[in-house]
């Protein structure tokens, strides 16, 4: 299941809904991304007072749906969920939730990391951070590209 929304979410409620009535699940791996209060600007950390997440409505849902389907092809998942917020957020706010449920804990962990790595490099979102130096668009990090590269193989969707 995928959701793109401005509203916040409750991890406990989401996990309960994801696993309800499914008693074959051995475990659920999740990752929740939060807004940090500091960010590197030109090499030096700057305080961040807020962040605005822009996205590409339509393409976002399409790409999230594709990558969730790919995760389910690669791993034996009983259930999966991606929630990504957009709009204005403050430090400490939740940005994203990825949850993968499986009979096998390694599958749940791997699928969860795969989805997060992919979200960082291929989901059409952009972050504008409000800093003392003004609004700064967050740049791609080389470590994110490297993290995503470890999952590359011919059957991967998208680019």
């Amino acid at each position: 299941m995928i959701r793109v929304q401005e509203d916040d979410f409750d991890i406990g409620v989401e996990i309960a809904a994801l696993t309800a009535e499914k008693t074959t699940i051995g475990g659920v791996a999740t990752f929740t991304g939060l807004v940090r209060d500091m960010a590197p600007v030109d090499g030096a950390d700057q305080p961040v007072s807020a962040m605005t997440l822009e996205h590409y409505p339509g393409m976002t849902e399409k790409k999230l749906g594709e990558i969730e389907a790919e995760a389910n092809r690669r791993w034996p998942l009983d259930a999966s969920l991606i929630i990504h917020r957009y709009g204005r957020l403050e430090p400490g706010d939740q940005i994203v939730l990825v949850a993968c449920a499986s009979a096998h804990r390694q599958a749940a962990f791997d699928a969860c990391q795969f989805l997060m790595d992919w979200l960082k490099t291929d989901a059409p979102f952009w972050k504008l951070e409000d800093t003392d130096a003004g609004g700064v668009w967050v740049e791609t990090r080389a470590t994110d590209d490297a993290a995503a590269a470890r999952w590359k193989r011919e059957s991967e969707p998208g680019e």
Partner: protein
Amino acid sequence: MKILYFAWMRQRIGLSSETVELPADVATVDGLIDWLIGRGEGYGAAFEKRDVIRAAVNQDYVPFDHPVADGDEIAFFPPVTGG
């Protein structure tokens, strides 16, 4: 043809989207970028780092030699930073 711009490309061009009629001599994303740059300073600034920006045609990532056709939804944007 609908063209969308996101993040700092949107800011530099001053538009989030526009509808244009595809010029007869534009066949690819690359050709479209050349034509857009000719339309004004904001476009020049937005497409300055041509090796950095990404393009999508009908909501799928494409390389710049990908064909474009009237009726397509084309999007240009900087590298993404979600998650």
